[in-house]
């Protein structure tokens, strides 16, 4: 037991250090003028995408359900903020609060059908629903602006780049702790139990579909919040937010970061965005290499660190201890 408390203490200390560093980061970046401001914007995007990746991992890593349509809920959240602020003049905070709700409702409808299927069939159906929603948004010019998207989302005056960064960071941390609470609760254990052995889960009395659906809705709600935040960061919403390629990003992030830990997908997402921007900064034409770099990174992870960066880190820690 002593060992456990000491390791959880180091966990808390390193966690608090990271949080403090994240809060101080924009203050430091502000010293670097325009480049600094750009990196504040990038860091804000990283935080938002980290939340999106973690939301997917509730169903992917903890629930064992592969969804190729998670971006649909992300996009619904983004369009909720865009439409409510732009067309209904609702204040940003209220619009952002509505984003997880509309995303959750969408997830409830989509999920109700999807959880009836298993494995690959489930994945394909999520893909189909995701693309269906994408096409609706893409073509419904009078409501969603079609392929133009919705531009010029108003920005509350208080949100300087630094303030908006802090705002997103606080929201992210709240979500992080809520998700942490969820995965370590009885509900979280039920979800893991279903992942481990769905058949047996039924025979201990778990209504498998119901808990898969609930988990799907919760994950959708967090994705919707992340989408709403991204709409505000970019000040636009576009159909691409719902596209299946957007759904792939949190999957890759979870693979790279490690899908059996809470923070893994967030770390994976941040690393991938950093790599991409880093390539861009070396030379704009290097972006064309991105697919190759990404492919190589995934290959290395799958072959040599199947439990992702977090798993790798844990293994190294174990080696040093023994």
């Amino acid at each position, binding site marked *: 037991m002593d060992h456990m408390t000491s390791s959880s203490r180091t966990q808390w200390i390193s966690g608090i250090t990271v949080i403090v560093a994240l809060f101080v980061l924009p203050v430091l970046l502000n010293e670097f003028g325009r480049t600094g401001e750009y990196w504040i914007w990038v860091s804000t995007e990283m935080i938002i995408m980290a939340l999106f990746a973690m939301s997917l991992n509730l169903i992917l890593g903890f629930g064992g359900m592969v969804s190729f349509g998670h971006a649909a809920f992300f996009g619904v959240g983004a369009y909720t903020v865009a439409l409510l602020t732009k067309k209904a003049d609702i204040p940003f905070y209220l619009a952002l609060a509505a984003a997880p709700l509309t995303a959750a409702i969408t997830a409830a409808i989509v999920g109700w059908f999807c959880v009836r299927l298993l494995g690959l069939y489930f994945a394909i159906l999520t893909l189909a629903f995701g693309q269906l929603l994408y096409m609706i948004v893409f073509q419904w010019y009078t409501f969603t602006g079609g392929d133009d998207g919705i531009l010029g989302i108003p920005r509350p005056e208080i949100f300087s780049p630094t303030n908006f960064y802090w705002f997103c960071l606080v929201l992210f941390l709240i979500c992080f702790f809520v998700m942490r609470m969820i995965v370590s609760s009885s509900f979280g254990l*039920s979800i893991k139990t279903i992942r481990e*052995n769905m058949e047996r889960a039924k025979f201990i*009395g778990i209504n498998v579909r119901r808990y898969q659906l609930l988990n799907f809705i919760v994950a959708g709600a967090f994705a919707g919040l992340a989408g709403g935040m991204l709409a505000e960061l970019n000040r636009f919403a576009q159909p691409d937010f719902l596209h299946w390629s957007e759904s792939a990003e949190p999957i890759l992030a979870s693979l790279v970061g490690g899908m059996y830990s809470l923070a893994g997908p967030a770390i994976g997402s941040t690393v991938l965005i950093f790599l991409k921007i880093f390539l861009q900064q070396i030379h704009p034409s290097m972006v064309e290499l991105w697919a190759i770099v990404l492919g190589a990174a995934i290959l290395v992870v799958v072959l040599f660190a199947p439990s992702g960066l977090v798993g790798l880190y844990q293994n190294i820690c174990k080696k040093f201890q023994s």
Partner: protein
Amino acid sequence: MATPILSVENLSKSFEGNQIFSNVSFSVDQGELSAIIGPNGAGKTTLFNLITGALVPDKGKIIFQGRNIVGMEPFDVVRLGMARAFQRTNIFPKMTVFENIVITIITRLRGNLRIFKRWNSSKKIERQAFEILESVGLAEKAHQLSGTLAHGNQKRLDIGVALALEPKLLLLDEPVAGMSPDERWETVELIKELWKKMNITMVFIEHDMDIVFGISQKVRVLCYKSLLAQGPPNEISANKQVIEAYLGEEV
């Protein structure tokens, strides 16, 4: 006379035109410890699948504690008080032994929706889990990943998971399959002890005739798509039809 806890009435089931059962009827008395035997392919496991709701019969009724449970989902049947342990070990391999039992207790108490407290925060559930682990002899391995247990211990855990449901009727599908001879008798003793102590009705499927005739009060023989015979072990081992069909000459 004891009242039946389970009655199967005119049960029929076929797969793609292959008749597995036709008009099987029997009833299991409250508190009995009984066995189901039959040659390979006689449909013993299928019978358990039908009783527990994993399969839906083509025809017939399954009355559990006075209620027809045909068409109910397995998780609802479990909640009525029927548990089962599996022929091929069926546990949650990447969870610890302790977690396997605790999630079962949480589910029995219908606490799966609790999100504000950690799953391991209840001392009461922890105590219950350890009582169960003691009773199946796995308390010392509580914090081991269950997938890393030896085969025999995994089967015991499977039984432990079933017990954590506090069932009124427990179906055991070849509880000692794949075990060494020593382990077998240990487990058989364990089952008998649990049956005596916990006042559960138990029905088990088994191939080992020494075990079947050693501990069961009643034996049912499945053969030729139907129930060939049922009765106390001494009657069954003397039954001509059963000997011809299944047991062979030397019994």
